[in-house]
């Protein structure tokens, strides 16, 4: 039997190719549960999962909650505004308090890179990184890998373009690491102000021009432009971004005819992507959302559904 030998999921970096395949295969068999009339199995009954979202979150948090509930785990959610973190309590103190209640897993989303790693050194519960600063967002990458494999029936050998703010995107970083591990070729593109130094060290090609990046690609992945970045002079304005780096049908037509277009959401329609493309025939954005629940169910199951059950 294949084993998932990890206490935590802190990043894609820690996973081996076999681990990633196991997650994707497990998600494949769990996906069907969400299509049933009664969308619940007792697999994680008696287990408890804390969703600890230090950053505002709608989709990731809902997706994790849905995943846990479909496996019958008990879930508690806390956000920074509703917790004592606004009262000046440190992350470690909050974590210790949570640990005292003996949860099986803590899912954390945090604005600081490395926050889940800090927790993992301090608590016994397993930690799932639901996004840390500009570092990683491993479950997003896993659901993207799942979606790619579902649509293309393979990952190895595919050519993938990732376009947008690579510097500040944890989605980009996790996807780059995961895709390269699984044997895809990755090209990143975006304004030079948003391409981090020495990104080539992660194994990617760098072009700045989206048209060049998209050319003959199997997968085009867009990233959300965070509007507040304008204030740090990373780009002059949304109009300029949209006209030079936004994805429209003309640019997308340079890709392979069976290209799939992905976006981790939430989208800024009319900025990084036109509505025509986002809602068009190549878009798999809604499939990504649906697969998110299945992949997160797989992670929960593999981390705490195993032996002790």
């Amino acid at each position, binding site marked *: 039997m294949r084993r998932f030998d990890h206490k935590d999921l802190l990043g894609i970096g820690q996973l081996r190719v076999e681990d990633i395949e196991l997650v994707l295969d497990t998600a494949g068999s769990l996906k069907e549960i969400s299509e049933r009339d009664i969308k619940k199995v007792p697999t994680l009954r008696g287990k408890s999962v804390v969703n600890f979202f230090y950053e505002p979150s709608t989709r990731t948090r809902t997706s994790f909650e849905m995943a846990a509930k479909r496996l019958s785990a008990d879930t508690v959610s806390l956000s920074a505004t509703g917790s004592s973190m606004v009262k000046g309590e440190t*992350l470690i103190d909050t974590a210790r308090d949570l640990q005292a209640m003996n949860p099986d897993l803590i899912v954390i989303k945090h604005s*600081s*890179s*490395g926050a889940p790693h800090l927790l993992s050194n301090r608590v016994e519960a397993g930690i799932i990184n639901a996004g*840390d600063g500009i570092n990683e967002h491993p479950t997003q990458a896993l659901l993207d890998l799942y979606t790619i494999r579902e649509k293309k029936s393979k990952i190895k050998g595919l050519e993938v373009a990732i376009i947008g703010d690579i510097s500040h995107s944890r989605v980009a970083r996790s996807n780059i690491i995961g895709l390269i591990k699984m044997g895809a070729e990755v090209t990143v593109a975006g304004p030079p102000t948003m391409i981090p130094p*020495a*990104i080539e060290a992660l194994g990617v090609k760098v072009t700045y021009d989206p048209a060049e990046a998209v050319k003959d690609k199997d997968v085009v992945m867009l990233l959300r432009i965070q509007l507040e970045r304008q204030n740090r002079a990373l780009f002059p304005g949304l109009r300029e971004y949209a006209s030079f780096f936004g994805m429209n049908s003309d640019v997308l037509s340079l890709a392979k005819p069976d290209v799939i277009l992905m976006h981790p959401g939430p989208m800024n329609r009319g900025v990084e992507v036109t509505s025509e493309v986002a809602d068009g025939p190549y878009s798999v954005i809604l499939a990504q959302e649906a697969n998110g629940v299945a992949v997160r169910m797989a992670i929960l199951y593999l981390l705490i559904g195993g032996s002790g059950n």
Partner: protein
Amino acid sequence: MRTWIKAGSVVDPVRGTVEKVELIIEKGKIAEILPPGSAERKGPQTKIIDASDKVILPGLVDMHVHLREPGYEYKETIATGGRAGVAGGFTTLACMPNTNPPNDSRSVTEFILERAKEAGLCRVLPVAAITKGQKGETLTEFGDLREAGAVALSDDGFSVKNSELMRRALEYAKYHGLTVISHCEEADLSRGGVMHEGVISTQVGLPGIPSASEEIMVYRDICLAKLTKCPVHIAHVSTAGSVELIRRAKEEEVPVSAETAPHYFTLDHRAVAGYNTHAKVNPPLRTPEDVQAIREGLSMGVIDVIATDHAPHSTLEKELEFDKAAFGMIGLSTALALTLELVREGVLGLAQAVKKLSYNPASVLGVEAGHLKEGSTADLSLIDPEYEYVFGEADILSKSKNSPFVGKSLRGRNELTMIGGKVVWERET
């Protein structure tokens, strides 16, 4: 009272020698330096310290420490920092002004000196702020500060952003005989950064501080020193580019001196792996190539001084998310061993290394220290340069334990420290 330090090897950083001698101390001063075997006990009044397998150093001078008092006594006090200093072989500490209130006035300078006197450990030399509140707006009263006992000026932690103000500070400080120590950081370029900008920051997803943010200000200050012919001392040099700028400036005889800290010649940016906040420091740990350049800069004499930038922080500032943690690490307990490592690796000769830890910083600050000769004040330490140990929290006498070297093997440690002829610290056996 007469003290005879028997059969030790004394390091003379000025002559560049290491010689076996008999050292006689009387009335707080070096009375005689005699050839080995030629001293004798003169009655029961002579205290004998056996130094036969030890090396005698002039008391070390650290021109860049944060003693945190007044204001941050939970991190360090003048007494606890002084204790860490003497245990580490230091007899003189120059303390930076970023206290609360900052040392920008006579009263704070006097308070620091008063507390240092009460503690009775290291000699403490206050470094006052260049600008009021370290805000970079108005010059402090240099003359008044000098009279109160300040030896140098720095807005350490910040660069004086306004170049005209910096120019005037250099000109006015020279008149008062005060050394200006510049923390070089172009703040707009480093804002938000928490580690060196490079391949590791990209891999671990932390915002970076580019080398250029240091180098731009190093070059600006060199330009101002050239313009005004007034000296400037560059604090904590961390990049290869800064070393090159300073090398060229010295070639052109611009009055510039420079220091680096042991962590910049020992560790590189990979030390932050696992989001280790004890390796978070400003300027940040750079690349292995920078570390190499710093070593060459020390070896070639481009970098004059090794200073620790001893920056105590409690767990409140360090047991945090990496980006929220404070910058800085303590250094008084490890500086000697880390510098001796350079000697063992052939980067520096022993006398040359000791000079950068004693005579040179004293010269930059314009104080008499760092050289043992007949008639000089008996500030010295006795070290065992080959003693090997695993550095632990128990070895740290600072109030704060934020060192990335805890758990690491070190070689060389101080055994005894004397200030003004009095043994102020001795290792318990």
